[in-house]
């Protein structure tokens, strides 16, 4: 008896009238995987650094995220404390072991900091973004102890720190950066693209924020990335 796998591939190849060993086909596939050609890149995101930041901010806000800009990483804790205070949220915050977050002066605030993954009982969490896409106002988050994936989804309020230097114009700008960080063909366990807080329109096509993920998404954009460490 043939296995399901063998049978499935045999059927595929019968339908395509191929054997799977044709050198031209194999070469075409290898070439595409190696070169990863770009397709159509919208003009929208093809801007200078200042233009990309302005577009990112506008698109993120259009997706119901909020954005604060600060001049340096040292200013992040005060900005976060102010955000929580202004929204009548408790002065608690959970974070992973990201060295960029760890280097910030959290002691200058009265925030109660917890570390590690979320078990679903945190109201507020903070993560550091891997990058962002101006075209759509999208944050790019990568999994690991630095920034646990659960922090992106379980807390009611998610705060994300983003270095201005990490904001790319288009979706495709993420991939060379990722390949440089991890190697060609490698991915983090989870890469989360996040565009605004969670929502659902499943009841009578009426859109409401705060489905299963965070009810609010706040982005702290750090203009001076040089001293981020």
């Amino acid at each position, binding site marked *: 008896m043939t*296995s*399901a*796998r063998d049978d499935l*591939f045999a*059927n*595929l*190849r019968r*339908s*395509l*009238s*191929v054997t*799977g060993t044709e050198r031209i*086909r194999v070469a*075409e*596939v290898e070439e595409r*995987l190696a070169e*990863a*050609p770009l*397709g*159509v890149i*919208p003009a*929208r995101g093809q801007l200078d650094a200042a233009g990309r930041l302005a577009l990112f901010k506008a*698109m993120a806000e259009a*997706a119901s995220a909020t954005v604060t800009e600060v001049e340096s990483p040292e200013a992040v804790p005060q900005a976060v404390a102010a955000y929580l205070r202004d929204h009548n949220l408790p002065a608690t915050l959970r974070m*992973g072991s990201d060295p960029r977050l760890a280097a910030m002066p959290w002691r200058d605030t009265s925030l109660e900091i917890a570390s590690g*993954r979320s*078990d*679903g009982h945190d109201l507020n969490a903070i993560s550091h973004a891997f990058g962002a896409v101006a*075209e*759509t*106002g*999208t944050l790019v988050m990568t*999994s*690991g102890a630095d920034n*646990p*994936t*659960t922090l992106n*989804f379980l807390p009611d309020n998610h705060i994300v720190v983003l270095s201005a230097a990490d904001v790319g114009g*288009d979706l*495709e700008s993420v*991939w060379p950066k990722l390949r440089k960080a991890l190697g060609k063909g490698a*991915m983090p*366990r*989870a*890469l*989360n*693209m996040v*565009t605004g*807080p*969670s929502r*659902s*329109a*499943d*009841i*009578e*096509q*009426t859109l409401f924020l705060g*489905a*299963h*993920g965070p009810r609010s998404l706040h982005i702290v954009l750090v203009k001076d990335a040089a001293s981020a460490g």
Partner: protein
Amino acid sequence: MSAVSTSPQFKRNAHEALRDANLQQALGMVRLGFIDKRQAVVDKLPEFDALRDSAREIKNHTLAHLDLYLERYEKKVQEAGGQVHFARDAEEARGLILEICRKAGAKTVTKGKSMISEEIGLNAHLEANGVTPVETDLGEYIIQLRNEGPSHIIAPAVHLTKAQIESDFRRVHTHLDPTRDLSEPRSLLTEARGVLRQKFLAADVGITGANFLIAETGTSIIVTNEGNGDLTQTLPKVHIVLASIEKMVPTLEDVSQILRVLARSATGQEMSVYTTFSTGPRRAGDPDGPEQYHVVILDNGRSNMLGGEFQDMLRCIRCGACMNHCPVYHAVGGHAYGWVYPGPMGAVLTPTLIGVDKAGHLPNASTFCGRCESVCPMKIPLPKMMRHWREREFERHLMPAPMRYGLGLWAFFARRPALYRLTTRAAMWSLSKLGRSKGRFKSLPFAGGWTKYRDFPAPQGDTFQAQWAKRKRAA
């Protein structure tokens, strides 16, 4: 056996749908909810049409090399510590998933929205074998409470009104205060969030579908707005991805192209809230994520579509734009189609998956207005493929006898132009005399199917061909 089909009784389903007041009220919102939103966001992206072409070419290339990309994908998943399982049909897929659940000692399974899961009838199978499936997408959760199938591929509960959902929540959530206020959709959403949060944290296995599989990296992608798919796949110790063979794309660059047309076509968003790329299980040092990562890849008749006249259908990315723009779907809703996939894409896909003998009515449920093809992000020639099915249905003698005889009679005259002209002139002349007083007929022999619902206008005395000839002479 896959999900149970009522497609053979499409006509009866459609009649019932037209008489269902709740359904008609809910369908009114489909027209308003999707079409304008899509158009607004498409208008903001000048490259949208070029991206559709790009997306089509990517899928065409992938389908032509599907065996090779699947092999590469399998290898990359294994390198990342995941397991790939292949299933030829629904029964094999259900068996594989149940086995993984049993090995994990699973009692409850949370689920992200997956049309493939509906296609293989997974929930009923898990339940029959002592594993409780919990749908976590709000729309899927609602229809699970009602023991119904989805009526739309991205908005499963689109056929329901707020009042119907409120009464279901009151019926099922008996642990909550019966006097609570659920009059606003927001309070329904908050209640579902609270109920499902506990289920997410307690589940042993999480099952999601996949919008795409990437060969370059061995990655599966889910695209959602609620965040339920991410909680489903992040919290339990086992994550099972259920995907069909045509979800494949070669590279991260390729999927970026298609993502641009997906969200815009589906919900009129620039980008969905969560686009999640998953590659293998939890890694050394990871504080969260599943310990096991399985991918079940389903064929279920799709490999037979390759290389034939229905191959283009395998480009479909399940955005739902075709049904959102379909006058037939607007009139009867998704359940009338009688199986998992409704609307124009369902009319083409369903006969390939369950047989034209069962689903032959569906390709006939079309006005051939062409709107589905004009909005399809993958430029799938849906009307052309519905015609292919009609031809096959005719060849296989599956049409009802009166229709076959009628077409045969028409063919007899069409091959004899002089006789055709004579007969039609005589018919038009006599009909125009008979109907002169009122200008229309309330009933006509052999045309009861028409006159049952509307009057038949009386001809004006001459055939089209005769008028055409007269005008040419006059010119």
